[in-house]
């Protein structure tokens, strides 16, 4: 990776971050890279590999030490997502759905009893977690969700449907949002609850090393103790974690773009046309130079914003900007890589076509470009 030691220091601020990056990079090279193409092609999640992330302690990265996690910050989360996505964006997405959307979300909203019940197995990876917010008819306008909950003795009863739920097919535990008395409320759902099921896998363009499905609530009976936070407190839970989630997705864009850039640089030094390496052609130089500039800009923005996000301190504007910029920049870099590698780029062997398909997701998932544009403008023009 290019850059000076000082440069490295900006993106790896403490020794702990340095060791984390080294561990994850090594793990990604040794264990994640070799299985990536197979899982992209078969459209399956490597559950055993997610469990190995648990052995390393990566699943509880942002959970404080007293909760059994590592107690690390948003920068650490960015490092992990960047390094994993460099080798396998689909797997990185499954990691995000588990470690951030489920574990991190759950930890900050749960009671001690709930933590005792669900944390050990989700921190180890014995159980896979997922989170359900989007519905077939409701995406960005999340407040209009149609899933409903009602009280029934010592249970809640949920009806509705969630869709595009990453890890849905494999997950054992879920965080799900539904309206109770017209107020968004959060519940913890276990696979096996009466009235709960998941649909078959939903086929998709990219990120195929992670899976998605619908969550179906058909009179699903949820014990009262599985209320997460308070009744009507769903928005608080949701908003508390959005920043670190956007950073994780942005960091995935960064990892993908860095990978495509590295592959491009290597290829243009080896491939020759008209009697010289193709990086000596001006048209190719434009792809390389612009991609490098985009990667560096993404990195600076993402790490700069990540340093400002803590459980106590939010930075909505910054994280919206990260994802708005990084998602499209990564897609452009991946597209450049496909173009530069030509026929090889379009075929699966060099994997850049996969990164292009994968990179597109970040413009949609976890907030569309249009949602970020709306949020940023609203914050900027607020009187």
């Amino acid at each position, binding site marked *: 990776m290019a850059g*000076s*030691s000082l440069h490295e220091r900006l993106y790896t601020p403490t020794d702990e971050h340095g*060791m*984390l990056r080294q*561990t994850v990079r090594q*793990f990604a090279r040794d264990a994640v890279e070799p299985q990536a193409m197979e899982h992209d092609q078969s459209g399956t999640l490597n559950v055993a590999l997610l469990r190995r992330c648990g052995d390393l*302690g*990566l699943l509880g990265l942002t959970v404080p030490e007293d909760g059994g996690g590592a107690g690390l910050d948003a920068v650490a989360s960015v490092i992990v997502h960047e390094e994993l996505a460099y080798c396998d964006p689909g797997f990185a997405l499954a990691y995000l759905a588990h470690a951030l959307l489920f574990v991190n979300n759950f930890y900050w909203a749960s009671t001690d009893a709930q933590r005792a019940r669900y944390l050990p197995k989700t921190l180890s990876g014995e159980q896979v977690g997922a989170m359900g917010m989007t519905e077939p008819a409701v995406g960005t306008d999340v407040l209009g969700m149609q899933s409903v909950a009602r009280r029934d003795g010592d249970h809640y009863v949920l009806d509705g449907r969630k869709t595009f739920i990453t890890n849905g097919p494999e997950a054992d535990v879920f965080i799900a949002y539904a309206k109770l008395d017209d107020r968004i409320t959060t519940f913890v759902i276990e696979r096996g609850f009466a009235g709960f099921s998941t649909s078959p896998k939903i086929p998709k363009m990219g990120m195929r090393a992670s899976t998605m499905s619908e969550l179906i609530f058909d009179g699903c009976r949820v014990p009262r103790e599985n209320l997460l936070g308070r009744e009507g407190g769903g928005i608080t839970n949701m908003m508390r974690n959005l920043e670190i989630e956007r950073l994780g997705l942005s960091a995935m864009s960064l990892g993908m773009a860095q990978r495509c850039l590295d592959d491009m640089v290597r290829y243009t030094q080896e491939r020759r046309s008209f009697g010289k390496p193709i990086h000596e052609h001006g048209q190719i130089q434009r792809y390389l130079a612009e991609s490098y500039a985009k990667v560096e800009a993404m990195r600076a923005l993402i790490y700069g914003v990540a340093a400002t996000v803590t459980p106590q301190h939010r930075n909505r504007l910054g994280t919206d900007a990260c994802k708005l910029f990084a998602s499209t920049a990564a897609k452009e870099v991946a597209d450049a890589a496909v173009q530069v590698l030509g026929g090889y780029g379009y075929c699966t062997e060099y994997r850049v076509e996969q990164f292009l398909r994968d990179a597109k997701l970040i413009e949609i998932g976890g907030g569309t470009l249009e949602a970020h544009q709306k949020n940023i403008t609203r914050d900027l023009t607020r009187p």
Partner: protein
Amino acid sequence: MKILVPLKRVPDPELKTKIKDGAIDLSGASWVVNPFDEYAVETALRLLENGDAGTREGGEVVVVTIGPSEAAQQVRSALAMGADRAIRVDAEDKAIDALTVVAVLQAIVAEEKPDLILMGKQAVDGDANQVGQMLAGKLGLPQATFAASIELAEDKASVLVGREVDAGVEYKRIPLPGLVTVDLRIVSPTAVKNHVTPDAFAYGDGPRYASLKGIMAAKKKPLADKTLADYGVTASPVIAEKGVELPPARPPGQKVDDIPTLVQKLVEEAKAL
């Protein structure tokens, strides 16, 4: 049982070497623990623990490095793997040579009195392959180099070291205290035996990753910052680097028309026959 593991930081060997003004350009380097030294840390941990149960009773692994303050990160990563404490002796890589390193390590051994000194067979930057042998010589300790396997005797008074040689594997038993340098295969799944981990147990290939738990624990482990003067050593290298250049580019291949020309060229130009 106390094991001392000297380790060195090196520029990441997976990255491309850049030459600038007759020296290796390290301004953009990212630094890692010398892989062979990392294997030595792994070996030390395997010698002391029950790998199957994931427990260790007693024993101590002390890592030592000689390098600038940034090298603390590399010793921290050895602590994160499971070593118990660390010593960093402050020095710039350029200002010291193998003999200086040996002098420092000699003083540290005198102070720490380890039962075993375990180290990589060489550092992958300079590839000198000298420190282990010279240190054992200076200390008057028995040595076994290029270990591909190691077995700690049940009475912990000796180690049986397997070394891969041309004709097969040579086994050497050396009494402790002693010094062993390790080769790549020492981190294969069953290369280390200690009569604690069940013989049938197989480790994963390669050194362990520092887990998050290990990384967080490493913060609290002692790391002593020392100077060359603390050990009565002055840096007076007898070896100096005069210049660095990349090997010349390979000349392009030639096509010949027939076998006699080929033979003639092999004899006269390549001097291969």
